[in-house]
């Protein structure tokens, strides 16, 4: 088990290499001409995806996946109001979006705290109210026939073509600031995500940390609005984290992986939408992100569907082989001859249809010898193996019954494990001599 961490970091590195390889490969396959605009757009998408993937992981683990949805929708009236007050200046629009979204956080929190609304209902109400207000304002702005409002609706579905180099710099700088806060408050965020009550009991200011974490998520949302749009922003927050969760069992690795997947989705979607005028970026980013999720759910080791199906099959077969070996051993012991053959038909009757493949496997491993008339004899090694398994079973049984009385070291009872490897020799000797 101690190797698991190392193995998983290797998985992370392999997935990073794969992600980095996909982009030049798809450029070459799609015969895409690399120009300044494309590089800008791809860089913007990648940085954004990284920031969203990392911060979105916390939303997913806190089972607040839809908080991102509510908050991105809540940003829209902020964009519209900022436009009405300050004109079409990106900095102001994003500031407006951030303030509106942040008010959304506070409103959801206080609805949950002060009323009997549950979190999901509170988020639904806030989402609908803010989004309705935002659409109303946007429609009003568009009806004014003011030329400067052109492109304001890009905030709904996102538009990569609009992104400029200074936007990429802005996204990177704010994203970096968010990461610094995340690193500084790492253990606190981990604690309030896993066990908020325990955090509070240890004197951590839960509400303040909660709002800080939500603020970081708001920053990610605001940065992404231009590119992904309010409607699908949640996908960029959630999908990379969901995919990353499949591949790892450690929080730090999950965040790194979510960043990688987010970056891949952001860059990929932005590149595709940059290919032609009028392709919306948000939906394309999400298509790429969801493809990564689908692949991860299918393929990831341990949690992936294919892996689990394969492991289940393998376990069933191994277990059947163990049992059949024991059956033959027991049968031989009953006849007081370790080489007494067992009839195949009896083993099938005992263990069902898995007995046949089990017999073949044991034969391949050289533990059994097949006789002429479908009967099976333990080989020298087979006999050793069966005796060792019987002894293991017996010692575990004794440990379970008497281990505590004898004051033996406490280990987790697991008869599938060789007990020799878990208990010191002195403890084994005491179990051996029990009667």
């Amino acid at each position, binding site marked *: 088990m101690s190797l698991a961490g190392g193995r998983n970091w290797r998985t992370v590195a392999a997935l990073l290499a794969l992600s980095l390889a996909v982009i030049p490969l798809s450029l070459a396959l799609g015969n895409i001409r690399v120009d300044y605009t494309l590089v800008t757009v791809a860089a913007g998408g990648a940085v954004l995806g990284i920031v969203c993937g990392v911060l979105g992981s916390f939303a997913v683990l806190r089972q607040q996946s839809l908080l991102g949805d509510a908050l991105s929708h809540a940003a829209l009236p902020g964009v519209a109001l900022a436009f009405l007050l300050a004109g079409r200046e990106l900095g102001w629009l994003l500031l407006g979006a951030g303030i509106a979204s942040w008010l959304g956080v506070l409103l959801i929190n206080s609805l949950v705290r002060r009323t009997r609304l549950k979190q999901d209902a509170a988020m639904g109400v806030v989402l609908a109210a803010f989004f309705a207000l935002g659409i109303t304002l946007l429609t009003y702005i568009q009806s004014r026939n003011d030329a400067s409002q052109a492109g304001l609706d890009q905030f709904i579905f996102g538009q990569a073509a609009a992104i400029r180099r200074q936007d990429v710099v802005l996204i990177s700088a704010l994203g970096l600031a968010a990461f610094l806060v995340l690193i500084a408050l790492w253990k*606190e965020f*981990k604690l309030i995500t*896993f066990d908020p009550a*325990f955090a*509070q009991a240890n004197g*951590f200011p839960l509400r303040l940390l909660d709002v800080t974490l939500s603020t970081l998520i708001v920053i990610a949302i605001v940065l992404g609005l231009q590119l992904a749009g309010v409607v699908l922003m949640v996908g960029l927050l959630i999908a990379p984290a969901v995919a990353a969760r499949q591949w790892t*069992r*450690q*929080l730090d690795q999950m965040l790194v992986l979510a960043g990688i997947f987010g970056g891949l989705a952001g860059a990929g979607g932005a590149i595709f939408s940059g290919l032609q005028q009028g392709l919306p970026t948000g939906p394309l980013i999400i298509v790429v992100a969801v493809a990564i999720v689908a692949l991860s759910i299918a393929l990831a080791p341990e949690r992936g569907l294919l892996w689990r199906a394969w492991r289940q099959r393998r376990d069933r077969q191994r277990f059947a082989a163990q049992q059949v070996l024991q059956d033959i051993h027991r049968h031989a012991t009953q006849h007081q001859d370790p080489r007494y053959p067992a009839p195949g038909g009896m083993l099938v009757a005992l263990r069902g249809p898995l007995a046949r493949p089990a017999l073949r496997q044991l034969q391949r491993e050289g533990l059994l010898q097949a006789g002429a008339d479908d009967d099976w004899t333990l080989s020298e090694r087979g006999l050793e193996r069966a005796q060792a398994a019987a002894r293991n079973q017996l010692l575990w049984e004794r440990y379970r019954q008497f281990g505590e009385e004898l004051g033996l070291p*406490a280990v987790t009872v697991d008869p599938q494990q060789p007990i020799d490897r878990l208990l010191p020799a002195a403890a084994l000797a005491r179990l051996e001599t029990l009667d």
Partner: protein
Amino acid sequence: MNQPPALHVEDLTVAFDSRPALWDVDLSVPEGVLMAVVGPNGAGKTTLIRAALDLIPRAAGSVRIFGEPVARARGLTGYVPQRGSVDWDFPTTVQDVVMMGLYGRLGWLRRPGAAERTRTRQALEQIGIADLATRQISQLSGGQQQRTFLARALVQDARLYFMDEPFAAVDAITERAIVALLQELRARGRTVVVVHHDLQSVPDYFDQVTLLNVEVIASGPTAEVYSEDNLRRTFGGRVAGIARLTEEALP
């Protein structure tokens, strides 16, 4: 002689939606005892712990821990919440969870180092799950989850522990391990308040008991207050065999 009690609760009232969950609770837990809190479902046992730790607002009353207000006594208290209160699919390991018990002591910006890892390993060994240190928490059995939480409380090195249903749905081995831990804590002069559901084992495991049903029915040394009469007043007529139980269990 004038040592303040480990826990002193006065006139505590907690209400949810204007229905009182705890009503005018007075309670005093002397230092160095094991106290059980028993009562029917909805009696406010968990609420009592959460209010004592200041995790939920009080409608009225005060809580003192070793004579200090709760906010000033954070370093003196340890907490074992109910097992079901967290998501066990969270991506982390047993030793990581146990180390969380040290976060409060570490303070802002500091990360766990060698000293914290040593403390963590000792606690895992003491509670008999050292072999599970690097195990993913989603792979733990119920008893192992409970021991992980106990180890996390142990590293807190508190003087007053609150444990919420640590015996709920654990196997016999885990139950014995928890009892051994409680006795060890008492031997070291620590105070433990345990929400408990098994009426039978109260006199075996605990020196003191609080019978709670929104109000405190009785509280004090087990031998004095754990009577058939008090149990009946706490649970109503609903516990069949209370008479038999107390006859058997009490001297």
